């Protein structure tokens, strides 16, 4: 990954975090809001691989943990794993179709929510918010809407190093 791309991803994570904190809660539907950090982590994992996805998930999740009075490190952990898994899973599907990130975001939203709740149970959290299939489904659908915007945007900002290697591979 080029230095420019790294810098770009850092700005994307920072922007996603600020939007998540101040803007996304305004657009709640059925009590849920899109999880931009998770979506960005998965999109980055699809475009740049599992480690990039995990690092973006880690940084974004940690920012999210620090910004709200919840147990620090839990969102970082769940989003790191979700980002990494997205990067690993995308290798099984040799496609550049937007359907891939859409499916990954849909299913990994369920994974991330269940993992988050599981970690909180392990930590002895006795009052957990009710976990309803409807809420998880709504959150997954909302995240899918977000990925339809974020995926093409992040694809537009791919930097020459990556493009060149792709072209070389195709020509060969």
């Amino acid at each position: 990954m080029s230095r420019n791309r790294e810098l770009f991803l850092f700005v994307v994570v920072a922007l996603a975090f600020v939007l998540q904190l101040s803007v996304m809660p305004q657009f709640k539907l059925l009590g849920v809001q899109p999880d931009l950090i998770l979506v960005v982590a998965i999109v980055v994992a699809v475009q740049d691989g599992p480690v990039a996805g995990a690092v973006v998930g880690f940084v974004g999740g940690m920012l999210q943990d620090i910004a709200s009075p919840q147990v620090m490190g839990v969102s970082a952990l769940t989003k790191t794993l979700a980002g990494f898994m997205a990067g690993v899973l995308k290798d099984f599907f040799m496609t550049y179709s937007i359907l891939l990130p859409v499916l990954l975001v849909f299913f990994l939203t369920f994974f991330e929510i269940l993992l988050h709740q599981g970690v909180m149970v392990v930590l002895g959290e006795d009052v957990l918010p009710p976990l309803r299939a409807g809420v998880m489904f709504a959150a997954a659908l909302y995240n899918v809407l977000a990925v339809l915007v974020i995926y093409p945007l992040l694809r537009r900002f791919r930097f020459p190093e990556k493009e060149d290697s792709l072209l070389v591979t195709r020509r060969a």
Partner: protein
Amino acid sequence: MPAAPRTSRNRIILILLIIVCVSVVTLYVRETDSGPLHKVQNFFLDLVSPVSSVFAKVFRPIKDGFVNLVHLPSLSKERADLQREVAELRRQRIESKEIIEENQELRKLLDWGETQAEFETVGADIIGQSPDNWQRLMIVNKGSSAGVKKYMAVVTEEGLVGRVISVGSRSSVVQLVTDSRSGVGARIQRSRETGIVEGRNEEIIRFVPMNQDADIRKGDVIETSGLGGTVPPGVVIGKVSDVKKRSSGLDRFVEVRPYVSYSKLDKVLIIVTPEPESVILKEAQ
């Protein structure tokens, strides 16, 4: 690069990240509220609040438009004015009811020294909300420099919003009564039956009466009881919207619709005087 070393490098990075996360979680859970990680949270809140404040202001018109679109397309200024008027009338009606009942109680007890304490409040703008779907929190632009302390009650003219759970120097985090971790001492205004109002991460909250045989009717007004030492008594919370019996028939679900419309909140009041008993006790120690 060969695939095998790259995979093992990926694994090492993942394991390192997991170790960092687990270490942070462990340290956070073990430390007290004044520990370094909690301080980092408060410091970061102050750092982010100006940016968040700008974004919140910029997106407020869009948010209002979205809320109007979601709730009712016909929502207009007239409706907002009417709602404000209704809220004001409701508050006046409830206040007068409250005064009458308090007066009766005082007469009974012959304790004329007890009077309704005047609340001193600090106005605050909402500059952010919980960044995830599992908490119902709001970030406001007033902190310890404005006299805000942990556990102080947050209200609007419509009723109780929640209480402060984390304080930075220029911003604070407010836990809404709808948060699933929120529990506020409450009572039924008509029958004075006490209980606890619990959030469920939904619009509707639940009143759990101390006495399972308590006289509770649909339409009863629920207000704070002052028990628990955080929220002052007599602040209205909501109205009983339904009383359901469990299938076992042993206890009841009392559903309460809060008066405050959380999705439309822009400004709140933080009650700084009288201070919550829990704060006074903590400071005395």
